[in-house]
């Protein structure tokens, strides 16, 4: 926009932006849909002056000079209005006249996203498209060595266990002494990871939950969904659908008084309680739901007044040591439902995961351990946390599993892995890889948003504005004008579809391994990778 005048340090041109709008004057009908839909006002109608000089043949007459005015779509270069590449403009364009393209070089915008001294924040994901999970192959293909199974024909038992499983000796003792046996749930190994009511729009949340209920009640698949930290709608707490729900408690404790009040009226126990200590996308950092997002609905569900900031600190306030924190949180949460509900902590991927695991393995009330790797998603985080902090899930889960193997407890305390599962669309392959590395199941959030609701975010820095409430698909917005773009029924349909297809794909991986009656948890002899260092680190086969 700076055709004339001075430049400031943050004066950028289109070339400096991560996304560049290409617009075709020839195709454009000037219908206004692209500018109406753009979530960040990156484009507007421009008035253009075009000059033509008309010299005459033979130069016998003085040349003419003329201007014409035309209108077109113009990209703003002010960093505050930089295109996010969501592509909604091209989605609504009737003539394919407009499309954002990624810059062919690292953008300059990143150096100017700190106005007022505020470091850049965003939603979404780590912008790293690679990863270990997609490199892992399943190299054990049984044709004649094991009973060859057929994914379409054979019956498979794909469920997993969530909860503490006693060793055979303990089981016998418990039986003899009629002692307390920890609660164990038989659930589907793909859990919809924690996304709070508030981080997600009401239509999105309801759509997901409806899909989960459908899978359970119509398809017989014991799929579970974790609430995230934002409480749980009161009606859900009092419905039979609660058994499909993993309630999360985190450092902000939002909505928990509502849950406690609902205890006497619950028809069912929840599937489990997840205590969140960390999030893979922003390890060691907390969250803040800005006051303007705390509308009537959020306030009712979270049990807070409207229009106040809702901080979730990086740590639980009453946590003084790992021993104490884990022990007392797990005890308290178990007590709430009379020790009938499995309780487990979720931590972000970290090099200290083994310390937590060792602690949990000694705690008979610890129902599982969930680890959220660095490729996990988030509604809002500092760039620096998202891009530079965290631990990849593959080696983290592997270390933990192998440690349990050393302790002889690998069948007793299930591990759940999350963070980047299916980030490039390979949900079943990634899940199977993690399961064979030692996870009892996986949690996924971003894939759920992408497959379930058409989230346009990508690892290439596309969109990722979940933090500003202007989600163009209505997934992470509390603005009815946006979230009503999302029909809960259609979301539920998509959830059912991608679960069914995941189910088939998982069988397609398991069948050639000759496994059909239980998940191949820790069956790492089936895994191979062409990278020798990865193979060595994960103790799996190096295949070249």
């Amino acid at each position, binding site marked *: *926009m700076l055709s*004339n*005048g001075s430049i400031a340090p943050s004066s950028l041109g289109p070339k400096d932006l991560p996304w560049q709008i290409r617009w075709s004057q020839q195709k454009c009908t*000037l*219908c*206004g*849909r692209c*500018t*109406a*839909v753009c979530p960040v006002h990156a484009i*507007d*109608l*421009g*008035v253009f*002056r075009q000059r033509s000089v008309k010299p005459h043949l033979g130069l016998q007459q003085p040349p003419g000079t003329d*201007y014409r*005015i035309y*209108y077109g779509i113009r990209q703003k270069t002010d960093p505050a209005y930089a295109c996010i590449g969501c592509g*909604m403009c091209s*989605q*609504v364009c009737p003539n394919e006249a407009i499309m954002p393209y990624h810059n062919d070089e690292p953008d300059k915008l990143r150096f100017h996203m700190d106005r007022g001294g505020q470091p850049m924040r965003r939603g979404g994901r780590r912008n790293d498209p690679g990863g270990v999970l997609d490199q892992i192959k399943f190299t054990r293909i049984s044709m004649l060595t094991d009973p060859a199974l057929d994914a*379409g*024909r054979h*019956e498979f038992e794909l469920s997993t266990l969530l909860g503490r499983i006693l060793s055979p000796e303990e089981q016998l003792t418990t039986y003899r002494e009629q002692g307390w046996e920890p609660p164990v749930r038989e659930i589907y190994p793909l859990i919809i990871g924690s996304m709070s009511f508030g981080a997600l729009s*009401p239509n999105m*949340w*309801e759509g997901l*939950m*409806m*899909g989960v*209920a*459908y899978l359970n*009640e*119509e*398809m017989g698949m014991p799929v579970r969904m974790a609430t995230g930290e934002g409480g749980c*709608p*009161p*009606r*859900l707490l009092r*419905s*039979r*659908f609660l058994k499909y729900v993993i309630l999360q408690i985190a450092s902000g404790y939002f909505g928990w008084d509502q849950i406690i009040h609902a205890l006497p009226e619950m028809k069912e126990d929840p599937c489990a309680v997840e205590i969140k200590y960390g999030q893979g996308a922003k390890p060691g950092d907390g969250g803040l739901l800005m006051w303007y997002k705390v*509308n*009537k*609905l959020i306030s*009712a*569900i979270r049990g807070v007044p409207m229009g106040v900031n809702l901080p979730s600190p990086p740590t639980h306030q009453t946590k003084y040591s790992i021993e104490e924190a884990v022990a007392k949180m797990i005890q308290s949460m178990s007590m709430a439902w009379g020790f009938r509900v499995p309780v487990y902590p979720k931590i972000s991927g970290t090099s200290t995961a083994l310390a937590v695991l060792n602690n949990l393995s000694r705690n008979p009330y610890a129902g599982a351990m969930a680890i959220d790797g660095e490729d996990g998603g988030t509604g809002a985080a500092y760039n620096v946390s998202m891009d530079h902090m965290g631990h990849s899930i593959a080696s983290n889960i592997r270390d933990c599993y192998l440690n349990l193997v050393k302790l002889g407890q690998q069948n007793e305390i299930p591990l759940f892995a999350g963070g980047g599962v299916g980030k490039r669309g390979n949900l079943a392959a990634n899940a199977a890889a993690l399961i064979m590395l030692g996870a009892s199941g996986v949690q996924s959030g971003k894939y759920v948003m992408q497959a379930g609701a058409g989230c346009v975010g990508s690892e290439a820095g596309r969109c990722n504005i979940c933090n500003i409430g202007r989600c163009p698909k209505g997934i992470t917005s509390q*603005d*009815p*004008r946006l*979230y*009503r*773009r*999302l*029909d*809960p*029924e*259609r979301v*539920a*349909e998509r959830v059912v579809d991608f679960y069914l297809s995941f189910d088939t794909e998982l069988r397609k991986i398991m069948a050639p391994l000759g496994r059909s009656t239980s998940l191949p948890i820790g069956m790492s002899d089936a895994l191979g990778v062409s990278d020798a260092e990865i193979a060595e680190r994960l103790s799996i086969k190096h295949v070249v």
Partner: protein
Amino acid sequence: MSQEQERAIQIHGVEDGHRLESRVLEERMQRAIADGHTRLRVETMGQHGIGGRLWRAGNQEVEVTVQGPSGQRLGSMGFPNTLIVALEHASDDVGWLNAGADITVRGHASNGVANAMAQGRVSIGGNIGSRGMTMTKHNPRFDPPELWVLGSVGDYFAEFMAGGVAVICGHKPQNPENILGYRPCVGMVGGRIFFRGPHKGYSQVDAELVPISDEDWQWLRDDLAAFLERIGRTELLETLADRESWQLLQARSPFEKASRSKQSIQAFRENIWDRELGRGGLIGDLSQADRSPVPVITTGELRRFVPVWANRKYAAPCEASCPTGMPVQERWRLIREGRVDEGVDLALAYTPFPASICGYLCPNLCMQGCTRGQNGLIPVDVPQLGKRSLKAKPPAELPEITGASVAVIGGGPAGLSAAWQLRQRGHNAVVFDRADRLGGKMSQAVPSSRIPEEVLQSELERIRNVLPHVHLQQELGPEDIQQLKQDYDYVVLAVGAQQGKKLPVPGSERLLPALEFLRHSRKGRAEVGRRVVIIGAGNVGCDAATEAKRLGAEEITLVDIQEPASFGKERREAEEAGAVFRWPVFTQEVCEDGVLLTSGELIPADTVLVSVGDQPETGYLPGSVELEGGFVRVDEQYRTSDPAIFAVGDAVGPGLLTDAVGAGRHVARAIEGLQQGRDPEGDRRPMIDTSRIRTEYFDPRIQSLDGIDDCSKQCASCGVCRDCGVCAAICPQAAIFRVDLGADGFEMRVDPELCIGCGFCAGACPCGIWEMVENDPLPE
């Protein structure tokens, strides 16, 4: 029968108590056929593939009787000429890849019966094991294959069955509660299964139960008899031929599979979800807000942003830049509309000197602020309009005096502006000046070369007509001020800055203040020597240089301690007069023969003028009026520390003429506010963001404007609708229309039911009128 048996050739599969290899038995059988035998009795011991592939017999029927235990794949790859009867039980895969043989097993058969059979028939006189009738085909060139089982079938029956007919009679089944076994029909894509007896389900995705038609029954009834004959159990016919006891499973067509009915999500929501949770679903108890789906492109209340026709909400940059608040763009609009007189006269509402100042003496801040100038176009030429404003006429009738009475001390631009504004607002303003004529600095100090005398006189005359109460040649002392305070509601000090600042150097008594020099020059009483040095190269110094030149000076030097602050016409004219600017230089002493600098250099001079700033005379002011740095201290409303006394113009600080006029106007409004008991308020609107103005509509090659008509056409009309109709034309929804408001003009309106909030109107508007504002929140 006995004759046939006699004709049959006996083939031994056991010799000397040893079982022959399957290969050897096969060779013997094939040799017998090749030798022309058609009846084979085979004594077997579990050999593989007995009775298949007997094609050497051509069309000649071959009958193979299997005595003894049959091995796997009895009759595999059997030919249509072959009839096989096994008298005992058979092992796996009876009739595997059967291509036409009629195979009968009198006893039971184990797993895989008829697997991949394409033609022919397999009849079993007992039960069969798992995976019977799997992968069967029906080649349209031939009759479909058939499997007949007297008893029951094992698990996984008819997997991937793609054709043929199976008949399961359910007589003495292995499991009386389930004659079809576990999970039959998975992947079945063709064929039919008649069965009799209880079952525990089948793959409903792939198969369906259908009624048995009369034609089907006729076929079944007839062939049942033949089957029983083959297996030698004719006595069962009556028991089995009970139509009511039979059922028929049939493969679903691909179309049926695709549309297999599971409860739709919509039905699930209605019947299960909402029923369990209550009306409105998950949060129906918390919110009654409409959450139904909306399209991406919306109108009405669902638009995220709505356009607002913010006509005149913001000040144009010209107006915002002018201290008087002169709405320059409004004057150009009136002229553009042919209302030239109105456009000219409008100026008098803001200044009594539209010609003298706007046309001649002002550096035209309006033009400096002009949006056009920011975008590489020449600004609209305001002095042309200023000069034309000499003809401006004040309203024929002034309002009756009903308000305050105000004494204005000083008849320069600030005082006259205050008095002019007060009088036009119905207040009584009386002007006192110690000079013999009005105009202050303009009359006394500005060189006559800068403005034609008749222009200034004409404007002063216009002022005198409006302000009859003017007292000239009034020297006022401290007691006079006190008196005025008593006689009038307010006093406005507009006494200017008459006293040149002293220069604290030896010989300063030799200096002549430039302002005084200019005043004398205006009266024709000034003289200068051949060489003139002026200390202080600001605009007053420049004026003095120009005048000195006019009065005959030949060498004129302007010195300053820093880069001179002079600008505009003053600077230009001084340069044209040949004045030399020198800086930074510091005066050591003013000597008889010139100015001695600290550097030791002497600039020779016959006359030395000083213009390092002027200050007001303040000796006569009452103690209640506080000073600051030699000037009268005022607040934002130009009120001094004495609440009854205001001060404006150079008395409060150096400024432009237009600053003085603006301050006068401001004071008048402040006094009016006090008089009416309200806070003095400005009429200043915020300036429009110039990036909203589209100067692309104008020709950038125009370098001069000829006359006020031309000027008016080039004005971008920032913030004021020029009624061009571009918004209505660009609107893709045809949502914008013009409403004529009669005497109140017009306005542009938006039909909310058509508008999609694209902002095209705001993007295309030349004047920056349309604003996109966030739509009101929807109810939660």
